[in-house]
């Protein structure tokens, strides 16, 4: 029986590897088709505003050789490096607390709802007015973008925990500390990973928005400069860099999320 289980699990993981390979192949093919169509459109339309895919790749290659690009990349990321961890460190405990203590949630839910529905770009001018055009303003903007969704996702994760488990714990005489350690924290962990993934996507959106709209430094500044020069290929190149980075980070976060939530299981072995 145990031998049978191991065997079936091994063949299961083999099937999974095949699935992953197939999925990756589809993605690459789909991207190749997109690039092909882009190239074709760029060549037929022949306008300054739509560079060809090859011209964009060329611009990217050129950019990667400039100091200006790397320093812009670094400057932009300072805001994320400051703003995102701060948002995570505050949002996750806040989400846990709001999920657990309904009295607290009754007081604060309306504020969180407002934060969630307010277009973040609308508060950016306020942040800049208060904090100037420095790194602080950009960091706070990233924070403001990432914070609400992380609180809400964490809170939802904690509330999603089966109430019957909490009753079980109570029946066994568990203290609040035990309930947190054995039920609330492990039960919310997958949601926290989701919160980090969603927060990261928001953080990058915030980073680009503030640089394009208000504080013209870093990648935003680069985009605006290329735009003024009608250098569409370089604009596209920078946008591609941001998109690729976001995709990569989110991919990593998704993998972490799956690993953390492994007990939920895709396959049942019986």
């Amino acid at each position, binding site marked *: 029986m145990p031998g049978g289980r191991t065997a079936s699990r091994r063949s299961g993981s083999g099937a999974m590897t095949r699935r992953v390979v197939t999925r990756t192949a589809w993605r690459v093919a789909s991207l190749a088709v997109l690039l092909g169509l882009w190239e074709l459109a760029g060549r037929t339309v022949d306008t300054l505003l739509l560079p060809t895919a090859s011209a964009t790749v060329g611009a990217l290659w050129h950019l990667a050789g400039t100091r200006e690009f790397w320093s812009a990349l670094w400057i932009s990321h300072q805001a994320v490096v400051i703003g995102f961890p701060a948002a995570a460190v505050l949002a996750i405990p806040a989400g846990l607390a709001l999920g657990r203590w309904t009295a607290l949630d009754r007081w604060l839910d309306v504020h969180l709802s407002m934060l969630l529905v307010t277009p973040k770009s609308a508060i950016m001018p306020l942040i800049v007015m208060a904090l100037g055009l420095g790194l602080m303003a950009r960091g706070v903007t990233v924070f403001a973008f990432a914070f609400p969704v992380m609180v809400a996702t964490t809170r939802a994760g904690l509330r999603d925990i089966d109430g*019957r488990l909490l009753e*079980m714990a109570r*029946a066994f*005489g568990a203290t609040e500390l035990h309930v947190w350690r*054995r039920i609330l924290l*492990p039960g919310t962990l997958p949601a926290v990973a989701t919160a980090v993934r969603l927060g990261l996507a928001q953080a990058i959106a915030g980073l680009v928005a503030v640089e394009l709209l208000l504080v013209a430094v870093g990648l935003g500044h680069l985009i605006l400069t290329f735009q003024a020069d009608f250098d569409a290929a370089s604009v596209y190149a920078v946008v591609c860099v941001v998109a690729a980075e976001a995709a990569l980070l989110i991919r990593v976060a998704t993998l972490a999320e799956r690993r953390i939530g492994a*007990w*939920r*299981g895709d396959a049942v072995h*019986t």
Partner: protein
Amino acid sequence: MIAISHCSKSYPSQNGEPAIPVLAGLDLTINDREFVCVLGPSGCGKTTLLRLLAGLVLPDAGELTIDGRPITGPSPECGLVFQDFALLPWADVLANVAFGLEVRSVPPAERRARAQALVDAVGLAGFERHYPRQLSGGMQQRVGLARALAVDPAILLMDEPFGSLDSQTRRALQEDLLRLHHQNRKTVVFVTHSVDEAVRLGDRIVLLSARPARVEEIIEVGLPRPRPDDLGTSPRFVGTKEYLWKRLKRQAAAGTGANVI
């Protein structure tokens, strides 16, 4: 000894309508080391009775005592087995079984040894590192049973523990429960809606009325322990089942009558 006297409980209903009475002046005494099955029509308040005994809810009126002490909250004397297993999905079998021990601050080494002993006792040796989702329903409830027994409670409270299992698995778990009960006699309060199960397991069967529940009748099963292998064909077993069936049917008929009026 568990003593329940004039116990009443109602649950508030939605939309501000009057509260729904679930138990109305219920009286019942359960002796030490006795196996009592609580049987009644579905929704009659069996689970509420068990939740009261577990100290998860308190009665509106009346008194529940264990050895003379009133029940004011969950007590270490009681071990609970839940209908839906209530296992931690992120913890393996051993950690689930050890949950109650951990809560009671049993030192880690002793905790592990005791949990392992119970994993063995319920026939799950070799599955210590499996997660609940990797186990069948019957195996999951074995974990639930081991978790309740691990804290060595004087009273085992079981809420339709085998209700969601297929009949074969159910029979296997019933046999195991009887064996464990025989080895280490505890007071067992076993809620079920299966007549067969009640007669198979219990020393006494408490038949509850339709909601609000009162004790309608107490039946002494009077079958020998350990239960003989040919239990299914023994006249006393068949007769008791027959009798209970008739009682339940009459009750159901009376219930509908009351609703119509």
